[in-house]
């Protein structure tokens, strides 16, 4: 080969670590520089076609470096995708290295000897040209030649501005590439954002192991999920309490994470923290519109599906799933409720802030604008729940979480019914004969009972859990379908948010 020109020195950031100079690359032998870009299909083709021969070239003493006219994270992603095993470098705008090498288009392969002299170059994908330059066998698969794209150093200022604008979105795309997502865009969990989320807490603190991955759930990983979900740092104590709750063995999060059932994890938040972080328990409480509601529930789901390994379609085998598996977190509206709030029912003081997690299916809306007595209304609510899981599955063998809207709650209160009374009357009112339930999917209890034996939907009034939430107008309550066969129990944890 004949030396035709001296090769310009450079120092560029590398995916492997610190900056890399040309002098480092050709210290022990010749180096092949492959100038490429993510946007150029011929560049990607060239990387894929050369990837298999890089080890052979390395064995012969030649190093191969891809110089991407792209940000480092993009370079890393394309190198991963193309299985390119060489050195991966990123050249920032305004692409002075490319200009120094007089590039016109990408890809351009430049061979440089150990004395830093250019000995040859091939432009575009040119199998015969590269074979001659490198003395290695290359695939004969078509295309044997393919022209590339303009190198970015040839762009004018306006074109560069547009390209740089597009590049700004790329870290969001990288999250999808890494599969650090539930399918919606996420906030990249940079070290700085995770530290802000931790707020000085020790990230290495171990909260427990989560099935099915049997992953160590550290505070740092929970913080990473909270960042991904879009939480503000002040939401984090609620996320942590929720994670602590689902890690209780009695919750059996691993079973819920992998089951063919649709169940997700429903979060109900009580106490002063609700107001402090803007958690909604009023109009539209079970729907979108409030950042705290959307992101806290999503953070827990990301812990379960990413950290814990219960990712949909992989170890999560849920037949249909349900929208609540994206996020489901709401506050009880303690101000409009005529009754003691849920956390007091569960033994906490009214002034404490508490998260209660319930393994549950999607909410079923229950309209009642016509009942004229508390018993009628209790029956309407209870009969709606009678069809949950499966119409003839009596008793349910699990918990039904009812969200009573303010108008229904006020009616019960005006009729003089306590929450316990509502629970007891609902329990008593929803009853059928075993004979009427003995078709389709039914329980062993019904199967073994005489036709006229009466069976209730619940084993006890304690299986009816009641919270009050929703807008001031409209007589729509809701009941969440249960999660069964998991031995799961609702779990409540106090939120450590003042410390």
């Amino acid at each position, binding site marked *: 080969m004949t030396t035709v020109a001296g090769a310009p020195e450079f120092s560029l950031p590398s995916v492997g670590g610190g900056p890399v100079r040309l002098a480092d690359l050709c210290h022990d032998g010749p180096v092949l520089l492959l100038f490429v870009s993510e946007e150029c299909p011929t560049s990607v083709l060239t990387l894929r076609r050369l990837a298999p021969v890089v080890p052979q070239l390395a064995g012969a003493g030649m190093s191969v470096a891809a110089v991407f006219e792209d940000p480092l994270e993009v370079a890393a992603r394309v190198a991963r995708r193309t299985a390119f095993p060489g050195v991966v470098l990123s050249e920032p705008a305004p692409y002075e290295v490319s200009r120094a090498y007089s590039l016109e288009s990408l890809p351009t392969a430049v061979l440089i000897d150990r004395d830093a002299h250019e000995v040859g170059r091939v432009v575009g994908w040119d199998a015969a040209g590269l074979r001659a330059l490198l003395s290695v066998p290359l695939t004969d698969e078509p295309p044997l030649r393919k022209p590339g794209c303009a190198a970015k150093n040839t762009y004018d200022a306006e074109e560069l501005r547009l390209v740089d604008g597009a590049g700004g979105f790329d870290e969001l795309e990288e999250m999808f590439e890494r599969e650090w997502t539930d399918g919606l865009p996420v906030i990249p*969990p*940079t070290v700085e954002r995770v530290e802000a989320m931790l707020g000085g807490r020790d990230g290495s603190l171990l909260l427990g192991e989560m099935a099915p991955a049997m992953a160590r759930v550290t505070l740092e*990983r929970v913080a990473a999920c909270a960042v991904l979900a879009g939480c503000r740092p002040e939401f984090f104590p609620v996320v942590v309490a929720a994670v602590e709750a689902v890690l209780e063995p009695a919750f059996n999060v691993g079973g819920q994470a992998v089951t063919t059932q649709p169940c997700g994890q429903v979060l109900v938040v009580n106490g002063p923290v609700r107001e402090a972080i803007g958690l909604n328990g009023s109009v539209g409480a079970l729907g979108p519109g409030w950042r705290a509601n959307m992101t806290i529930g999503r953070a827990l789901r990301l812990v379960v599906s990413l950290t814990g390994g219960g990712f949909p379609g992989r170890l999560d085998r849920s037949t249909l799933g349900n929208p609540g598996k994206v996020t489901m977190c709401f506050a009880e509206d303690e101000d409009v409720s005529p009754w003691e709030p849920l956390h007091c029912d569960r033994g906490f003081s009214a002034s404490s802030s508490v998260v209660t997690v319930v393994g549950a299916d999607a909410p079923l809306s229950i309209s009642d604008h016509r009942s004229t007595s508390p018993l009628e209304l209790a029956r309407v609510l209870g009969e709606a729940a009678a069809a949950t899981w499966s119409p003839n599955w009596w008793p349910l063998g699990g918990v039904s979480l009812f969200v009573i809207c303010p108008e229904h709650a006020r009616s019960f209160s005006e009729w003089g019914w306590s929450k316990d009374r509502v629970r007891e009357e609902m329990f008593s009112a929803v009853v059928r004969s075993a004979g009427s339930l003995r078709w389709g999917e039914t329980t062993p209890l019904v199967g073994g009972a005489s036709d006229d034996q009466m069976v209730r939907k619940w084993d006890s009034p304690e299986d009816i859990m009641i919270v009050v939430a929703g807008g001031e107008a409209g007589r729509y309550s809701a009941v969440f379908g249960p999660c069964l066969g*998991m031995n799961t129990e609702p779990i409540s944890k106090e939120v450590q948010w003042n410390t």
Partner: protein
Amino acid sequence: MEYVSPFDERRRAAEPLAPRPVDLSGTRVALLDITKRRGDEFLDRVEELLQARGAQTFRVVKEIFSKPAAPEIVRHIANRGDLAVEGLAD
């Protein structure tokens, strides 16, 4: 850009598969009943087929299908068996 992974990367790496036996004759095969309904019937049939190929079988029962097997059950299978068969789901 440096990110904090939400994963326990130690657990994310795929475990390599154990070598597959060429011949079942004389192998000790654990049949793990996870207590899903009718799973035992399925394992009865698998057991017949394995024994017909010369395998020695033994049954192990999990406490509940929806929770990971207790460590002592996993140890028991590893100590006594060469292979394990587990029926999953319905």
